[in-house]
């Protein structure tokens, strides 16, 4: 019974994953006193990309062709691990919270290889930078997961999300995980999704050679990755309103609370993106260090029992 619901929940989240990006874009544009595109714009883009012809470089090997599917599969596997609406619905027999970090690393590994595959200097630059940023931010992700897991005495996301109270150290862990989200979803100040300027792009440089259907798959994968991280904060660290059983009322409350929390996160991200400037690449070290110190602080506070 649980597994069909888990799959249904994952499909639902996949369906709404692009909408989150659309909402963030809309809020950003409104903050800049512009009207902006519709929140459904990501869907129109995807539809367009699916219909377009794909161009593949002569130099590319099979790595380039299989990467979109691997990246998508790794994002969806990560999504299966996160309980979103009901605290006991996730595929926890497959793995725990730590597995999410490793599964996402699989997609990133192939994406970085695909960046190098076509022999374009842009791709290599993007791969190098992406691996640089992700390797620095990975310890922060593990540390934040440790803090919330220490509070719940378990790394199992279902147990964490059924915790009745949110400890103070978990709030700090959520803050450092927010830093991770910014880096992993290529947001300002680490990266900028909107630019295609050679010197500054990171993620976009890596996928520059992709077009048509493959690009669409990679975009869907990054939307899903974003919702994985958002759900980690919204449902695992702050499980307010999450349903513990399957009944219509509690599910409705849970979905409502989830949407609220996601929207709040979107607002946070948009305000940050509008008000900050992109950092130089080498200052990402400072960014990661701050996040790391914050997560160590989380462990210290957690060890004091708060």
């Amino acid at each position, binding site marked *: 019974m649980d597994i069909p619901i888990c799959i249904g929940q994952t499909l639902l989240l996949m369906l709404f994953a692009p909408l989150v990006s659309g909402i963030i874009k809309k809020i950003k544009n409104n903050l800049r006193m512009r009207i902006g595109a519709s929140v459904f714009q990501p869907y129109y883009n995807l539809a367009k990309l*699916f*219909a377009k*012809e*794909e*161009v*593949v470089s*002569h*130099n590319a090997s099979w*790595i380039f062709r299989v990467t979109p*599917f*691997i990246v*998508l599969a*790794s994002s*969806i*596997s990560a999504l*299966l691990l996160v309980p979103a609406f009901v605290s006991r619905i996730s*595929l926890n*027999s*497959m*793995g*725990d919270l*730590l*597995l999410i970090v*490793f599964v996402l*690393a*699989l997609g990133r*590994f192939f994406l*970085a290889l695909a960046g*190098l*595959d*076509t*022999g*374009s*200097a842009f791709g*290599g*630059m993007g*791969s*190098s*930078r992406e*691996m*640089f940023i992700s*390797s620095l931010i*990975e*310890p922060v992700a*593990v*540390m934040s997961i*440790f803090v919330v*897991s220490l509070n719940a*005495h*378990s790394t*199992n996301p279902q147990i964490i999300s059924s915790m009745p109270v949110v400890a103070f150290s978990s709030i700090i862990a959520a803050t450092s995980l927010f830093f991770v989200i910014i880096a992993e979803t290529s947001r300002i100040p680490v990266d900028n999704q909107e630019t295609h300027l050679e010197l500054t792009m990171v993620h976009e440089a890596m996928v520059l050679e992709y077009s*048509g*259907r493959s690009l669409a*798959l990679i975009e869907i994968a990054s939307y899903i990755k974003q919702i994985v991280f958002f759900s980690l904060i919204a449902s695992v660290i702050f499980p307010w309103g999450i349903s513990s059983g399957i009944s219509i009322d509690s599910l409705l409350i849970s979905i409502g609370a989830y949407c609220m929390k996601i929207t709040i996160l979107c607002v946070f991200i948009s305000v940050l993106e509008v008000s900050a400037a992109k950092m130089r*690449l*080498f200052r990402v070290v400072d960014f990661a260090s701050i996040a790391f110190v914050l*997560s*160590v602080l989380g*462990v210290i506070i957690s*060890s004091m029992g708060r």
Partner: protein
Amino acid sequence: MLGWLLFAGFVLSMALVVTVGNALIFLIAWEIMSMISYFLVIFDHTHEKSVKAGIIYIVMTHIGTAFIIASFLILFKYAGSFDFAAFKSASRTIPPNLKHIIFLLLLVGFGTKAGIVPLHIWLPYAHPQAPSHISSIMSGVMIKTAIYGMLRFIVFILGIEGIWWGNLILILALLSCLVGVIYALMEHDLKRLLAYHSVENIGIILLGIGASMVFLKMNLPVLAVLSLCAGLYHLINHAIFKGLLFLCAGAVYKATGTRNIEKLGGLIKMMPWTAAAFLTGSLAISAIPPLNGFVSEWLTLQAFFLGALSSPGGYKVFFSICASLLALTGGLTAACFVKAFGITFLALPRSKGVTEAKEATFSMKFAFVFMMLLTVLFGLAAAFIIKLLVKVSGFIFGLNTEGMNFSINNFSLAIPQSGAYLSTPLIAIVFAAIAGICFLCVHLFAGRSRIGSYNTWDCGYYNLDARTEYTATAFSKPFRIAFNFFLLPYSKTEKIRESFYHVKSFKYEVFTTFIFRRYVYDPIISLVLLAAKQTRKIQAGSIHMYLAYILITILLLIFFYR
């Protein structure tokens, strides 16, 4: 012929090292192993590099052996026999202070062989110079005999005396992890890169072992067994994937005649089997699920988590930091292998030799496929293997492992203390199913794809070639800048001029300062040379002087021992 004899002798001597039950025979076997591996390092003795690497190797390995002999002599003094059983029963009578000294002697002795930082100095020279199949055994198996030595003599025979033993090993292990991977990122010699990763992986193995020693002293037997399992599991896994990677590096070297990855590229088209094998090895070493390297790193992280959970204040923070530094190591390893695989096998060939490369022969391909299968198997059969390793760990610690069960139906790992599950077969199935469904959906709903083939986008510039590709140096540049406090990089620019006005070409080289060599080894070496110079003064060459020395010695002896 000689090569085969040495190879056979090498394998036999390693088997002898781990099977004997007497310290004297152990030392003999250890020496045979070291000597044969020295001969294998200088096998290609026409190369000046090989001879130099051999000298560094033999000096370091004998310094290590000297420490091991010293510790055995102390143990012999108490046991009265070289038998392991006698050692073990005598270890109870050794006073604690002496035990600490024996521990340090053994740690330095075996640490030199294992290549833990800062005793790793020989490893990146010696391993790449040996023939590739030997490198794969040296990295995969030989350095593990040192881990065996540590477990046998420190944990099993001596017994853990102080909690600081485990802490010291943990700190050295973290240092090995980070130093190994950072140097590997800077390295562009394919085999030396892999050798640096051996330093890193020894660090990961020792993280498990060091943590288990701490847990044992904290009276947490279940955690001790779990983290020793993680360490031993990584030991086996490293032997598999590092063996595979070295074999691939050897195939690349044989096909192209170079180990410098800046001169390689595009090999995936010429050598598809080698590329697939190297990719599998890279994924395993980067801890990508569901392959074997991932399982052991996950277990190590779990051990640290449980350690943090069940220990008081300061240790909570220490174990969490250990775990996060392990994650950093994992991230940097992934970056390093994206570089190693991407630059070597993808994009366009960077030199002429590469375009004429031929795929490895059948016998080599057979070895690749065998090792690839092992890599996958040891990932998928994790639950079964852990069951076996729990028994081994229990035996090493002398604990009863009756109630310790970390697996369900040989299908998934379950850690009851943290409520966590991990099922590598399920990950593989789910992953394959999702990828398959996505592929089908895309083809069903979006129809047949129209795929055109064209040049890589060149910004309107007319012709991109191998010179415009991203290089390994450029790839590792962000890391070089981020870790410049440790690497102390410097560069040399040389202008090759046709005339004063016209610069024909530039030569730009980047170097890193090896701080352990410069600040630890170089001063020691110059001190030794200085001492040798001073002592030479008493060897003046005059026969009368020497007769006087003899007389003085005899007089002194008579005076002291009359």
